[in-house]
């Protein structure tokens, strides 16, 4: 057990690529927490996808023992928070578990939109914030300008910012000293009943569910009977440990300390981030404030390309869900795509991460349907319904009005691209809330419908700004708008997988783009096929695919019979990859391409 005044708990706030993980690695290395020979670059980002994308998805943590220049020995707990807004709630919980933050800004780039969102979370959590200017070894480094920008944009004092090159190992000791001397020690009462916050949890194939906690009051020991206050579940603590970053057993954890325990918990789903943990008997009376369950905001269908992979997909999704309580799924049947799952995600990045993991770790080829948001349907009988899938849209005569989720989007962009960004936001039904300049960069804040953003907004933004814009958003609430379900009919049969919710004024454009694309993607049949986009019974866009006119083998003699027969047999087998709509067969690739809208 460590005395409170010798503990410092902190997180690192940074934009992607600004050097958060490298700095964390240096702190671990400098304090010999991990032997040099065991250092892997970016130690804390353990998942392949995290390492590849340079982002942190699950919060990781490490306990560092540091002998400061004053000769005292300190315990520094670093919680490496997720760097993306999709995981804003996880970030906010992580922030509540620590007392201070290092704000890492790339001194060659300056403040980015994601930095802002996370630093505001830190400010909300009453953190002491130590600004760090990273990458000072690069010629393009502009420490003074960036320090000024931190003061202008974020509004915190950056005069004593630490100048660091994590890559070159410059300023690491200064950083450690600043953690000890500038960040506050945690508070807590060792004699009070146990009160600990559940910060994170994950599934380990050897240990089962591992729960990370921050002790606020009281002491937790191995063998204790503990209770999760939100779920009411009771467990016995099997092992108690700290992360260095591998698990090292410890006898007890007292106030201000951060560690992990296992307790024969079967699934991560049984642990709720933000929950309060206390003893079964003589527990604390009130839980920690601010708990809320995570709610998926973006939905899409995931279907196996090969219908035979459905069981594998189910197994993989179940396994992933064990380790990610924020991801929801239910079985879905689509006439177009067969059996699959309707899955809910915290945001677009979360969706991509899960899809990548399914494809990569479980080796399943997937079809992802167009992402959709959760609409609120106000029914005429007064009922409020949530719509997760456009295919489930009820008849409009029963619907009074529809509300859609809105976001506040913050975009930082070099001013030469500002015009394009404003146009993009206007085109996506955005309402400008703010426009300010910090040096040659503009910061625009827009109120946007989330459904316009889940639909390739980020790709368009990257493309119109040549990758120079940074973007972040937070959900702000629901608002009524003129929303309609657009159906796609192929040969007069509706194709459920292609239906989507759109704003009435944007429907013609989207419908036209879709039918034109489908005309090129669906092979000709022996009859002509109308392809229509419709709202209710009204057709808003139409194309006609001509009938097949020529498909015959020119030469077919004695030596060709076998080959031709085998080709037909092969086509018979390949028919599984076609989806039948009335008389029309649509190849699976057509769905995949059609759903990959690019404009």
């Amino acid at each position, binding site marked *: 057990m460590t005395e409170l005044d010798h503990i410092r708990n902190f997180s690192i706030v940074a934009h992607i690529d600004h050097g958060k993980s490298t700095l964390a690695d240096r702190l671990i290395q400098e304090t010999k927490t991990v032997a040099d020979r065991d250092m892997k670059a970016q130690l804390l980002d353990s998942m392949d996808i995290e390492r590849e994308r340079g982002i942190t998805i699950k919060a990781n943590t490490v306990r560092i023992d540091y002998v400061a220049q004053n000769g005292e020995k300190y315990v520094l707990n670093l919680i490496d928070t997720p760097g993306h807004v999709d995981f804003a709630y996880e970030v906010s919980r992580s922030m509540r578990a620590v007392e201070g933050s290092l704000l890492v800004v790339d001194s060659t780039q300056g403040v980015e939109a994601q930095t802002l969102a996370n630093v505001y979370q830190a400010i909300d959590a009453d953190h002491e914030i130590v600004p760090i200017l990273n990458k000072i070894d690069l010629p393009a480094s502009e420490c003074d300008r960036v320090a000024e920008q931190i003061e202008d944009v974020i509004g915190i004092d950056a005069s004593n910012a630490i100048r660091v090159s994590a890559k070159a190992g410059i300023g690491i000791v200064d950083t450690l000293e600043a953690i000890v001397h500038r960040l506050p020690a945690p508070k807590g009462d060792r004699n009070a009943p146990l009160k600990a916050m559940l910060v994170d949890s994950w599934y380990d194939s050897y240990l089962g569910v591992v729960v990370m906690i921050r002790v606020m009051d009281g002491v937790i020991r191995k063998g204790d009977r503990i209770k999760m206050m939100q779920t009411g579940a009771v467990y016995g603590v099997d092992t108690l440990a700290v992360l260095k970053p591998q698990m090292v057993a410890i006898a007890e954890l007292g106030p201000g300390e951060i560690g992990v325990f296992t307790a024969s918990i079967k699934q991560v789903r049984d642990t709720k981030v933000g929950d309060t943990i206390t003893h079964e008997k003589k527990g604390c009376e009130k839980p920690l404030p601010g708990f809320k369950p995570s709610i998926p905001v973006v939905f899409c269908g995931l279907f196996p390309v090969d219908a035979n992979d459905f069981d594998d997909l189910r197994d993989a999704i179940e396994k992933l869900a064990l380790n990610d309580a924020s991801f929801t799924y239910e079985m879905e049947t689509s006439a177009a795509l067969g059996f699959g799952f309707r899955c809910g995600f915290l945001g677009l990045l979360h969706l991509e991460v899960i899809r990548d993991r399914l494809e990569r770790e479980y080796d399943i080829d997937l079809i992802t349907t167009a992402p959709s948001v959760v609409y609120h349907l106000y029914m005429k009988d007064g009922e409020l319904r949530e719509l997760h899938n456009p295919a489930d849209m009820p008849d409009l005569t029963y619907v009074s009005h529809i509300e859609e989720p809105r976001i506040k989007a913050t975009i930082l962009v070099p001013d030469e691209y500002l015009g394009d960004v404003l146009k993009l936001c206007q085109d996506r039904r955005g309402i400008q809330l703010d426009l300010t300049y910090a040096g040659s960069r503009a910061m625009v804040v827009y109120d946007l419908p989330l459904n316009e953003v889940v639909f390739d907004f980020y790709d368009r933004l990257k493309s119109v700004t040549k990758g120079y814009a940074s973007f972040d958003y937070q959900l702000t609430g629901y608002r009524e708008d003129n929303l309609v379900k657009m159906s796609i009919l192929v040969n007069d049969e509706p194709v459920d997988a292609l239906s989507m919710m759109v704003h009435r004024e944007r429907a013609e454009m989207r419908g036209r783009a879709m039918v034109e694309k489908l005309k090129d993607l669906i092979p000709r049949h022996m009859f002509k096929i109308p392809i229509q986009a419709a709202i209710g019974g009204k057709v808003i866009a139409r194309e006609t695919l001509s009938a097949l006119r020529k*498909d015959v083998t020119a030469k077919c003699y004695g030596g060709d*019979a076998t080959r031709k027969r085998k080709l037909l047999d092969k086509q018979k087998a390949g028919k599984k990859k076609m989806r039948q709509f009335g008389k029309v067969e649509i190849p699976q690739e057509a769905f995949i391409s059609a759903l990959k809208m690019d404009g």
Partner: protein
Amino acid sequence: MPSASLLPVALPEDWENGGFALYIHWPFCQAKCPYCDFNSHVTANIDQARWQRAYLAEIDRVAGLTPGRVLRSVFFGGGTPSLMHPDLVAAIIERIRRSWPTSNSFEVTLEANPTSVEAGRFAGYRDAGVNRISMGIQALNDHDLKALGRLHSAAEALKAFETARSLFDRVSFDLIYARQDQSLSAWREELTRALSLAVDHLSLYQLTIEDGTAFGARAAAGKLRGLPDEDLAADLYEATQELCENAGFPAYEVSNHAKTGAQSLHNRVYWEYGDYAGIGPGAHGRLTLGGIRYATDTPHLPGAWLERAETQGSGELSSEALTSEDQFSEFLLMGLRLREGVVLARLDSLKPVEFEMNYNGLIESGHLEIEAGRLRTSALGRPVLNAVLREILGA
């Protein structure tokens, strides 16, 4: 392949509806054409005597399996059979005539390239017993002939054609259309000229880009430009039907046109799903023996076939007993190529018991027609025969 059994067979076998033919494959060419996916090889030195021994041995072997069958036709295909020495052709035909009784209208066709050198052998082929020549003229202008990789000029081809028609009553020639940058009007003009030259038979093939050919590789690399899209290809096909019909050369098969009584009897054996023995490297066959219809295959490489024929007592590589499903598919895919289609009663007898055939939709949509007990494609259905077959066979 098992030897012919002596079962007391009384009922006629299905192949008898199509007859019995013999295919001889000569695998060599002077050069490989960029569109051709046939089994052809370019070699400088060919030991014709050695090949002769192998061919004769194979004829003896097949004759031993099919005693007493009436032979309808022989076809020398390739490769370029007009590179064969006339003596070799004579020896083969002589052995064939000794091995089987032949029909009254016995047809012996030899494929020929229209070059002057080859035309010099035409008389020899006639004397050897060839009674029909099929010439690969392919195009009537030099630019396109060059693009198709042909070694002859248009003028040379026409001269060779004149030689052939002076020696043979029956001369067919091939043209390839839907070529790169070929317009509808240019093809109409070229075909009109071809029809004015034609004797009694024309094979008109749409250029098909096959994998494993030089054109296939060029197409895969995106370097084969100017090929017609589906609509132009369909227009070209329709123009072909119209011009040939008006000139008295109606299509009797997807790509084959003939004056009355001048259809290729040999090729009809394939389309009517008769039996045919294939001799030579890469030659396929269909042979019904002991009530079982076999698909036979031979080694594709000339040397491998030769060695097998010499040392194994058979040039055959494999013979696969065809299931009823296989036979049904093959009967349909071959038979529906013919203008008159297939006999419904025979279709019924070949249909696997559990197979549910449903072509009513295709009759309603006008792609198929039934007349006089036959099922056939209409003018609408024939150009999309592949789709018609997929529909009927559930592929």
